[in-house]
C-alpha cells in the first residue's frame, strides 16, 4: 500500500501536469526534423491500428531503408486486402477482392508512420511544438509531442515518439478543442531490425497521371503556409473520364482540388465527415465543377474553394 502511494504522484503528474510552454522555434524545428528522419531512415516492421469515425483497421507496415531511399510496404490485415508498396521508382496499391485484383499507381510514397515531410523544419512556422507527458505504446517508452496549429487552418497532432529514437509510435489527429479525430497506434513494432527482403517485383503499370498542360483556374489567397505541390490530370477509381487533381499542402496538412466538366446544373454543396475531420466543398466554376476536400477545418476548404476563379 505504501509503495503504491509513493508512486502515485508520478502518475498524477502525468495526468494533470500543467501545460508545458511551446518550444522555441529552433528547438521545435529540430524536434520535427528528428521525428521525420526517424520514420524514414530507420528500418522497422510492425502492426498498427488506424481508427477513424467508428471504424478501425489493423495494418502491417515495414520499411527497408537503403542508401538515400527506402522500400516500404503496407498491408491491411482485416477487411478487403489492400497492399501499398513503395520504392524509389514507384508506389502502387494492390487490391484483392476474391479472384479480382486491381493495381493502381499512387502519386506519392508516404504513409504512416512517415507523417512529417522530409524537410520538416519549416513546419515550425505554422505549428508550435510542446512536449507532453511520458507514455508507453507498443511496449516502448515514449514521450508525447504536441504539434499544434498556430491558426485555425489546420488540425493538430499529438505524437508519442520513441524515447530513444524519436520514431512515432502513435499519432492522434486533433481538432482545435483537442478532440481526437483519428489515430494511428502501433500495437507491436520491431525498430532497427531490417525486415525481410520482399523479392516480388512491383508490376509495371502505365503512368496514369500526366501534367496539366493548360491551366483553366486561378487560385487566389491560399491559407498561410500552403503551396501547390502537385497538379496532374488523372483517372479516378470508379469515376469515368479524366479529372485535374491539384494538391495544396503546408507539409503536414493536405487538401485536394478536383476539376472536371460540370455535367449537371451546378450547385454548391458542403460536406463534412461525422467528427468533422474531413471537410469538402463542391462548387461550380465556369463550365467546370470544383471539388475541394481534405483533412482540414472547413475554414481552409472554404478559403481555397472561394478563392478559385475561372480564367477567361
Amino acid at each position, binding site marked *: *500500500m505504501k509503495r*503504491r*502511494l509513493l*508512486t*502515485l*504522484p508520478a502518475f498524477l*503528474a*502525468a*495526468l*494533470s*501536469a500543467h*501545460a*508545458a510552454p511551446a518550444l522555441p522555434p529552433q528547438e521545435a524545428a529540430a524536434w520535427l526534423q528528428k521525428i521525420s528522419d526517424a520514420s524514414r531512415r530507420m528500418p522497422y*516492421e510492425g502492426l498498427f491500428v*488506424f481508427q*477513424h469515425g*467508428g*471504424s*478501425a483497421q489493423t495494418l502491417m507496415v515495414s520499411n527497408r531503408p537503403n542508401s538515400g531511399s527506402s522500400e516500404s510496404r503496407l498491408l491491411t*490485415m482485416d477487411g478487403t486486402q489492400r497492399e501499398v508498396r513503395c520504392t524509389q521508382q514507384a508506389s502502387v496499391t494492390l487490391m484483392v477482392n476474391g479472384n479480382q485484383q486491381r493495381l493502381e499507381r*499512387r*502519386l*506519392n510514397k*508516404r*504513409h*504512416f508512420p512517415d507523417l512529417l515531410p522530409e524537410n520538416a523544419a519549416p513546419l515550425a512556422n505554422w505549428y508550435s511544438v510542446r512536449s507532453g507527458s511520458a*507514455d508507453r505504446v507498443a511496449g516502448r517508452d515514449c514521450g*508525447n509531442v504536441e504539434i499544434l496549429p498556430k491558426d485555425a487552418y489546420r488540425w493538430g497532432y*499529438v505524437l508519442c515518439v520513441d524515447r530513444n529514437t524519436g520514431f512515432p509510435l502513435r499519432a492522434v489527429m486533433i*481538432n482545435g*478543442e*483537442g*478532440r*481526437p479525430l483519428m489515430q494511428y*497506434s502501433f*500495437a*507491436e513494432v520491431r525498430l532497427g531490425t531490417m525486415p525481410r527482403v520482399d523479392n516480388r517485383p512491383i508490376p509495371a503499370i502505365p503512368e496514369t497521371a500526366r501534367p496539366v498542360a493548360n491551366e483553366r483556374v486561378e487560385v487566389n489567397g491560399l491559407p498561410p503556409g500552403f503551396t501547390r505541390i*502537385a497538379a496532374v490530370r488523372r483517372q*479516378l*477509381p470508379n469515376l469515368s473520364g479524366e479529372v485535374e487533381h491539384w*494538391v495544396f*499542402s503546408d507539409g503536414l496538412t*493536405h487538401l*485536394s482540388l*478536383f476539376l472536371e466538366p460540370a455535367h449537371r446544373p451546378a450547385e*454548391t*454543396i*458542403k*460536406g*463534412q465527415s*461525422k467528427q*468533422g475531420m*474531413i471537410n*469538402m466543398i*463542391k462548387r461550380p466554376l465556369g463550365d467546370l465543377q470544383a*471539388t475541394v*476536400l481534405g483533412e482540414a477545418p*472547413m475554414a481552409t476548404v*472554404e478559403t481555397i474553394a*472561394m478563392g478559385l476563379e475561372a480564367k477567361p
Partner: protein
Amino acid sequence: MMTKASTQQMPRQDEDDDLSALFDGELGAERARLALRTLGSSPRWRERYDTYCAIGDALRGTHAPAGGADLTARVMTALEQEPTVLAPMRGPRDRRASLWLAAAAVGAITWGLWSQLPEPHTAVPLAANDAHPPVDVQPYLAAHQDFAQAVISPAEMNFTQVSLAESRP
C-alpha cells in the same frame, strides 16, 4: 471520512489495493475494467480518488487549476471515452506474442469497445442550410489519400446545400 474509512478497512482492503493499483497502472486489463466501473459507481471510491488527487497536489506543492490538465492528458482521456478511437488498456502483457497474434488481439479489443459505446455526435455544427442527399466522395477521397495518409476508411459524410454568396467569408 477517514474514521469511517478505517472502520471499514479490513473487509475492503482488496478493493483499496485495486484502486491504488489502478492509479499506478499495475492492474491487468480485466481487473482494471472492473475497477473503472466501480470508480464510476461508488461514492466511496470517488471520495478516495479525490483524496489521492489532493495528496498528489500537496506532494507536488501545487493545486491543479480547474481544467488545468495538459492537452495530452485531455486527448488521452478523450480517447478512453471515444468509441472512434481505441484506448489500449495499460496492463501487463505478454510481449512475446507474434505480430499476427497481436493483430487478432487488437481486432478483438476494438470490436469490444465499438459494440459497447454510444455513437458520438458531430462536434462541428453544419451551417443551417438544407440537407443535401449523399454525394459520392469516395473516388475523390481515395485519390486524395495518395498525398495524405494512405489509409482510408469510407467516410460517413453529411451534406448541405449552400449558396455561394453565403459561403463567402
